[in-house]
């Protein structure tokens, strides 16, 4: 076995002072070997130590055997965006070790399996070989369990090298195994053994360390998809139909996990919800619209390819005015694209989804808390506006674990919008699409309404207010004009943008969703370099006057987004055509979450002359 610290003297001598809670780790493994258990234990333990930390799983579209990387960033300053580089490599995948080592910055650390015959050598790195097989054999486990347990070797070694307390990791592992000590125990043992090995055999030659930080408030650890599902439940979802697709599947999985417990009728014990796995996304959205028309709070979750299939029904939902909530956890397209990588690539397609003159309301959550909140408010919006509401999350938000303050119970009561009872129909009469209130929104009745005058035939064909079928030009136009009024009503009902305006700022930034993390960090870096910026984070389409005013105030406004074509930039140009020339597009998509460095490089590259 090669001993530790295969570093040259001079590199050791130039080591800077200890770097605490401000670096990144990348764990390179083979997928399907259970490394997520190890990675999540590390992540959770660091979170519980009060260190701002973010984990991102960069995984393949594959069940078993392909390379996967898990990025963990620690930042005492609180930044949780992806970093462009990681200082510590856990090299547990021989197939990628060459490229993984090549990516390390000078002074980087490589923890690797000592059983490998060779490993690429660089003079400017610190190497720590760990005899993985020895621990695996000693564990006495057989078959696939050996693969699983092997991952605990790097957990133990990292813990020792970085100074992580073992109890925090033990607690995280127990949590992972739902408190089942019998399952956690073999993992904990191997972790301890690797820790002891590192303590006895490795001379630390790198500057990286962790240290507990003051925990100011209690936090929860949750993925965006789980938060969205919980939000949907507290928003009163009663019907969901879906077709499995990465990266949205865990959203419905979470519904299926919590609904049986949270939504049973207390007297009969029976379900007050239904979740149907459909034959495709066409059927999923069809069922959702059928249920929404009948009066349920109905939703689906999908990703880009599913949105493509839903285009037909989206137009029907828009035109027949049927409430629905559609979560699009975005992945990289066009086509099948990169199914396991994140993107904001469905913005323009979804905004106009449906042939003819269709336009849709979209919400953009950026945090797990907003996933929860929009999970709730999307149903109120759908019922109020009598329209499909799209919620555009992404893989990074949806599938990765994030820390958050615990979610708050909704303060607003459930709002079912304008629904008439049999009695109300008897008193006021009923014409489905008549705009009585001037907001473009008619009144609905639900099938089963006992008043025969409440019945109406929903249709995607031309109709008048009553509604009966109509091909009259004046009926068509009146209906489309009313839908425009309704869309204008939506502008003031959707979540308002979040504004951070800085006195004396010369540039404005408009962005939405999970680019917020890179942008927050980049704005701090830019400020240090003397570049002040103001920031408007969009949380919905259509936009309102606030956005127009923001654009008016700044000479240059950059629209930053994680897609190739600058989709929101184009939408905003059409929304504010008089100021379109002020809007500059900063769009980037290679499958990875945005970094602060990318933003800083673009904005500090003399481009705002």
């Amino acid at each position, binding site marked *: 076995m090669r001993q530790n610290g295969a570093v040259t003297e001079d590199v050791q001598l130039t080591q800077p002072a200890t770097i605490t809670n401000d670096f990144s780790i990348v764990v390179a493994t083979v997928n399907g070997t259970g490394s997520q258990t190890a990675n999540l234990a590390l992540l959770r333990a660091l979170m519980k130590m009060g260190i701002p930390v973010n984990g991102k799983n960069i995984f393949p579209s594959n069940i078993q055997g392909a390379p996967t990387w898990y990025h963990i960033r620690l930042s005492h300053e609180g930044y949780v965006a992806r970093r462009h580089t990681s200082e510590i490599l856990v090299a547990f995948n021989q197939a990628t070790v060459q490229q993984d080592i090549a990516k390390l910055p000078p002074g980087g650390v490589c923890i690797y399996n000592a059983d490998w015959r060779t490993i690429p050598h660089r003079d400017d790195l610190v190497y720590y070989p760990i005899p993985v097989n020895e621990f695996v054999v000693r564990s006495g486990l057989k078959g696939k369990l050996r693969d699983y347990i092997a991952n605990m070797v790097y957990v133990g070694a990292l813990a020792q090298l970085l100074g992580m307390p073992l109890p925090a990791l033990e607690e995280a592992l127990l949590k992972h195994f739902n408190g089942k000590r019998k399952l956690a125990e073999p993992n904990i043992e191997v972790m301890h053994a690797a820790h002891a090995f590192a303590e006895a055999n490795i001379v630390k030659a790198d500057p990286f360390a962790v240290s507990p930080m003051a925990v100011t408030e209690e936090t929860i650890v949750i993925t965006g998809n789980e938060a969205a599902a919980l939000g949907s439940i507290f928003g009163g979802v009663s019907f969901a139909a879906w077709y499995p697709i990465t990266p949205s599947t865990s959203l419905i999985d979470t519904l299926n996990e919590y609904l049986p417990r949270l939504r049973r009728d207390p007297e009969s014990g029976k379900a*007050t919800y239904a979740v149907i796995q459909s034959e495709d996304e066409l059927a999923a959205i069809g069922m959702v619209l059928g249920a929404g028309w009948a009066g349920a709070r109905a939703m689906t979750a999908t990703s880009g390819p599913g949105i493509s299939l839903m285009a037909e029904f989206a137009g029907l939902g828009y035109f027949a005015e049927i409430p629905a909530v559609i979560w699009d956890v975005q992945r990289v397209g066009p086509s099948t694209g990169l199914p396991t990588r994140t993107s904001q690539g469905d913005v323009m397609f979804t905004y106009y989804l449906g042939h003819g003159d269709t336009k849709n309301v979209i919400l953009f959550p950026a945090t797990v808390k907003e996933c929860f909140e929009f999970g709730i408010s999307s149903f109120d919006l759908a019922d109020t506006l009598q329209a499909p509401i799209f919620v555009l999350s992404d893989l990074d938000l949806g599938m990765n674990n994030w820390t958050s303050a615990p979610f708050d119970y909704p303060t607003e009561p459930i709002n079912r919008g304008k629904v008439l009872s049999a009695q109300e129909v008897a008193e006021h009469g009923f014409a489905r699409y008549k705009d009585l209130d001037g907001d473009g929104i008619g009144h609905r009745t639900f099938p089963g309404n006992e008043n025969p005058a409440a019945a109406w035939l929903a249709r995607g064909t031309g109709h008048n207010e009553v509604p009966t079928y109509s091909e009259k030009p004046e009926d068509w136009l009146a209906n489309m004009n009313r839908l425009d009024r309704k869309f204008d009503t939506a502008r003031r009902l959707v979540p308002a943008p979040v504004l951070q305006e800085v006195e004396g700022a010369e540039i404005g930034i408009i962005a939405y969703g999970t680019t917020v993390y890179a942008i927050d960090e980049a704005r701090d870096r830019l400020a240090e370099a003397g570049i002040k910026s103001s920031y408007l984070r969009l949380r919905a389409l259509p936009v309102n006057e606030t956005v127009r005013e923001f654009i008016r105030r700044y000479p240059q406004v950059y629209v930053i987004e994680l897609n190739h074509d600058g989709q929101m930039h184009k939408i905003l140009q059409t929304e504010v055509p008089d100021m379109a020339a002020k809007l500059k597009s900063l769009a980037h998509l290679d499958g990875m979450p945005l970094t602060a460095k990318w933003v800083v490089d673009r904005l500090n590259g003399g481009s705002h002359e």
Partner: protein
Amino acid sequence: MSNETARPAAVNLVGLTKNDYKGTPSTLCKGCGHNSIVNQVIQIAYELNIRPQEIIRLSGIGCSSKSVAYFLGNTFGFNSLHGRMPSIGTGALMANHRLRGIGVSGDGDTASIGIGQFKHLMRRNLRMVYVVENNGVYGLTKGQFSATADQGQVLKYAGENQMPPVDICMEAIISGCGFVARTFSGDARQVRELLKAALSHRGTAVLDIISPCVAFNNHDASTKSYGYGKEHELPLHELGWVPVEEEIEVGAYEPGEMRVVEMHDGSHIQLRKLESDYDPSDRGAALSRLQTAADQREFITGLIYYDQSRPSLAELSDLTEMPISQLSPAQLRPRPEALDAVMAELK
């Protein structure tokens, strides 16, 4: 019509006249088989004392799908998208499982663009009558073959059909449907009896109704013409539906002459043997009979397959008695303590 104004119209047990079951006037061609089916739906709804609010009308797109506008005008309905009636119906009937659906589709809507959703509806078995107004041709687009057109058939516009037809009854049986019938819009009595029986079925009931298109496919060489139907219809049995409250009369018949099928809701279907005894409860025999009919170009009609054992999806879903579409806000939103508990677990 003039004599109707002379005396008050008769009302049924729920106080409705036959007129109350009508919809808007039909815009289909005069003589279209679909109009006859519309009339039978109106007739049986009146006879069965159906309360309009217990039913929903459903359809896709096409001449057939327009039919739902022409009956049960006081009933909620959804004229949806081409081939997508099954998904809309599934969502609606899950949201309110007390409702029953009457859906009308066509051969294009079911056997072509909608074949996937059709087959999955059979699997899920929602409580709805699924009528296919089957004429073998696309009418609104002026005369293309549909997937149920006979192989070798010649049409003026479309030429010769090279493809084998999709047999809607076979597809339904294979996919798990528990009520499969074929009938002829020219045989009003059989259509009515089958509609009544289908409405008593606990799940999805498919009625493949050969319904001639007078504009594009009613020439004598077509197996979907009036002339062909009238001449060749081969009923498997004489069929009558007997409501729960009525006695069935088997005594009057010779042993073996009458077969009685008890339905899930306690009503019965009486099948009087014609040329030979046919057992509609035998899935394999049903498929075999359909195959023979296809091979020999027989136009068999009647109840081809019946199995009441499979529960509907709503029954399987352990739903509350209260439809989920009618839950109060308090029933929709779990209480604050529930959120507190979940948050505690996530810490």
